[in-house]
């Protein structure tokens, strides 16, 4: 296994727009809905719908390949192999949120990918990454966009409150990836 720091010279935090098309996103949303969301409602931590095992191997592999391409230090550098550690799908409707202290702790370095599968932009529904309390990566609602963030124990993440003043839900596929030795 290779440490991410050996692969990427700087800690990554970027957004790839239009990583998935609207039709493919709609198909993914439909598959997730068929698989079935469970409601998480311990509201001192979060309020959201979740598919804990989304069974989206092909989509996850494609996203991992895309991330590997984007994170190469130079276009000619060999593409690292990124393995999916786990994946889950979150659906946040009006009034929903995920607080930072509900975030999974990452003592080791890995990549977190967040794919926005929403049907339409949901104003103010964002994912925030903080280091030392300082916001350094803000993922705005943008259907089709893919956020790529390198995480370690010093990074926290939360999904902002979704306003009840609008009717739509945001759907996110969240993957964690680890680099494998070539």
């Amino acid at each position, binding site marked *: 296994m290779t440490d991410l720091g050996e692969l990427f010279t700087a800690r990554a935090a970027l957004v790839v727009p239009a990583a998935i098309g609207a039709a493919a996103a709609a198909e993914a949303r439909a598959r997730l809905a068929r698989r079935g969301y469970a409601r998480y409602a311990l509201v001192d931590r979060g309020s959201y719908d979740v598919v804990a095992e989304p069974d989206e191997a092909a989509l996850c592999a494609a996203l991992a390949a895309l991330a590997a391409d984007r994170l190469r230090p130079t276009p000619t550098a060999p593409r690292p192999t990124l393995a999916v550690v786990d994946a889950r799908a979150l659906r946040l409707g009006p009034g929903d949120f995920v607080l930072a202290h509900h975030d999974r702790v990452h003592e080791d370095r890995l990549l977190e990918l967040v794919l926005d599968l929403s049907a339409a932009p949901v104003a103010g529904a964002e994912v925030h990454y903080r280091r030392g309390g300082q916001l350094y990566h803000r993922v705005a609602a943008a259907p089709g966009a893919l956020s790529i963030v390198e995480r370690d124990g010093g990074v926290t993440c939360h999904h902002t409150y979704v*306003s*009840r003043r609008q009717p739509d839900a945001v759907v996110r596929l969240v993957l964690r990836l680890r680099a494998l030795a070539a």
Partner: protein
Amino acid sequence: MLRLGAAWDDEPALATAWRAARPFPHLIVDGALADDAVAELLAVVDEEPVWPYEADLFAFEATAPEPTTAELRALRAAWIAALTPRLARITGAAIGRADLRAYAYRPGHYLLPHTDHQAGLDRVLAYAYYLPSPAPPRGGELELYRCEVAADELVVTEPAAVIAPAPNRLVVFAVGTASLHQVREVLDGVRLSLAGWFYP
């Protein structure tokens, strides 16, 4: 001296209401201040600058933790002097000091569920006093949750009570590991309040 309303006259009834309140001890006092005191209080608060605050748990505007005007410091002292002995008698809590900040929740503002309990802070009672608003809010209710605790973690959280931010209403509740509450999102208008905690 801050003049309290007649609602405080029957302390035994308030104490009974406190003990009977669910999901955790709380008190709702309508007409908490005399009418002239409300007007004086509004004039003082109006002079204090407010700042935006935003984190994963909240979005609102508030005055600084320490008042910037002598008038608000005086108001805080009067607030403590007027309420501390009464609340101590009604709730049975050993309290001696308090803090106070003014809050403005505008459309889209909220305070998500939390308990106020933090080790080392010694918060005994939390309070919110709702001011008359030039644009009365839709939303902004205080929602209380029934909780079950196991191994120092909440394992059940269920909505249990909703308290509207009615003008000149004071809400007080006991702070503990299960005093889970939130301020629902303000959908329209402005929710104005004074809030803080009483300490030993």
